[in-house]
């Protein structure tokens, strides 16, 4: 059924950028990051089950600067995706769909994410030895 000659619907670059559009793009981007994070969680659990030597490798990686930055990024993505997901569930139930309400909830979404991400980063870094 599909071949290259069929017309395509207008793609991203056709539309004027809007504030609420960013929430949707970020939801997707953070979702992809979290899918990678899920693999990281599984890899960490496998290393843990394998024993102290294998886990030491994962632990050193997570404790380093790169690991900490990745964890802070993942935590930020997690809070964003969770809050945005709840907003989408409200949309699914028919709430908050008009333009003003969607913009207001987008503002709350960014604010809540910033707060939760800062608190998480603080907990992560204040732990000292914790990765």
């Amino acid at each position, binding site marked *: 059924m599909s071949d290259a000659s069929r017309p395509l619907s207008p793609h991203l670059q056709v539309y004027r950028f809007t504030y609420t559009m960013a929430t949707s793009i970020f939801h997707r981007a953070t979702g*992809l990051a979290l899918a990678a994070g899920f693999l990281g969680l*599984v890899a960490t659990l496998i290393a*843990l089950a394998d024993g102290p030597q294998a886990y030491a490798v994962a632990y050193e990686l*997570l404790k380093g600067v790169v690991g900490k930055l990745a964890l802070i990024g993942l935590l930020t993505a997690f809070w964003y995706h*969770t809050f945005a997901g709840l907003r989408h*569930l409200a949309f699914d139930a028919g709430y908050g769909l008009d333009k003003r309400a969607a913009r207001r909830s987008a503002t709350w979404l960014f604010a809540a994410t910033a707060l939760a991400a800062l608190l998480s980063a603080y907990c992560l870094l204040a732990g000292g030895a914790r990765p």
Partner: protein
Amino acid sequence: MSLKSPLGRVLGLGSAKEGAAHWWSTRLAAVALVPLLVWLVLALLMAPSLDYAGLHAFVRAPLNALGLVLLLPVAAYHSLLGVREVVEDYVHAKGTKVLVLVLLDFAHVGAAVAGLYAVLRVSFGGSP
């Protein structure tokens, strides 16, 4: 009375009456993940130590193991739905698309089962 055309019915086009169930299960997985992941993230952030002994003790605790066993398959399912949607949106070449989707299916089932097996090994494997 069916609104499907005879041709559509023969070709298997249109709703097979599973659309609503699929929509609902995607939402249920998303809703289930909220408490499960918020619990895991907060528990790990507040854990006294995440070195080998610390994380091992965390995963060994029965309630934590139960939470992880619940979380892993649901997270894999939700993740698979999400990345499948991205591939369906942006990969247009039919062969590549099917190949990538099948690889994603395998990877997610593999990751979920490997994660579950790891949790069970820690749970039943005795103290370090």
